[in-house]
């Protein structure tokens, strides 16, 4: 059997999660129950906080969730809008409830 290089730094589902957030963000009429994307804007109307509530975050580390949300943000927002985002948070429904987010 040939020797093949195995290289993996991110969980296998990372790209799928990013794509899932992007797809939901681009479908404002979506009737999916998850993921739920919450954006919080500054006084000048620019998005600065992004919360994504999704059961699929369950097995993903918190830092990677933040990175996945930001990778999705980069695909959805304009480059200069991306720079305004200071919080990117991925939460499971239970975690969002514990945090007191009103998302349901």
């Amino acid at each position, binding site marked *: 059997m040939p020797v093949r290089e195995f290289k993996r730094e991110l969980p296998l589902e990372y790209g799928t999660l990013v794509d899932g957030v992007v797809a939901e963000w681009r479908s404002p009429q979506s009737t999916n129950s998850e993921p739920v994307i919450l954006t919080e804007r500054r006084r000048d109307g620019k998005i600065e906080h992004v919360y994504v509530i999704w059961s699929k975050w369950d097995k993903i*580390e*918190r*830092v990677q969730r933040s*990175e996945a949300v*930001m990778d999705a*943000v980069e695909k959805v927002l304009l480059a200069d809008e991306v*720079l305004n*985002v200071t*919080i990117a948070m991925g939460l499971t429904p239970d975690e969002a409830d514990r945090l007191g987010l009103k998302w349901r």
Partner: protein
Amino acid sequence: MTLRDNILNSPETISDLAWAAEQRFREAEVLMDARHITGAVYLLGLAAEMWLKTACFRSFGAGLSTPIATQLGPARVWMRQQAPAIDAESYHSLQFWAEYLIQKRALTGIPLATEVTGRLRHHVTHRLFADWKVDIRYRLISMSELHSNRVYNDVVWIRREWTSLWR
């Protein structure tokens, strides 16, 4: 509840980071006094990393209870766009955090004073970044007293100034 469970169930916050930085610094001083220089330098670098991160996150609107992980994705993307040559080194690079602080504050209209920027680059970008890397935890390394004193003096500067870096 085990220590592991405790950590897993309570994501670290900006407040945790600031307290931990002070704790690591004091532990480093004990090691320095006992001439355990490599361990001391390792802890001093960690303290510097945490103070720099805290200054960054507080500068850009995070509260004391904000989870740290939520800040890392935005920092990575910001630097990827604005300073792609600087590697985050799994978020441990002191150069990454110093430059993120300097450059983002400048671009968002809250620049650090010129003198502070100069000192930050002197102590961190030009010295600590070269004198410390998180990977030393996995190495058998002997360090000179000169090296450890230089690291100590640079970190003492950060410890003294870190609150002014975000106000």
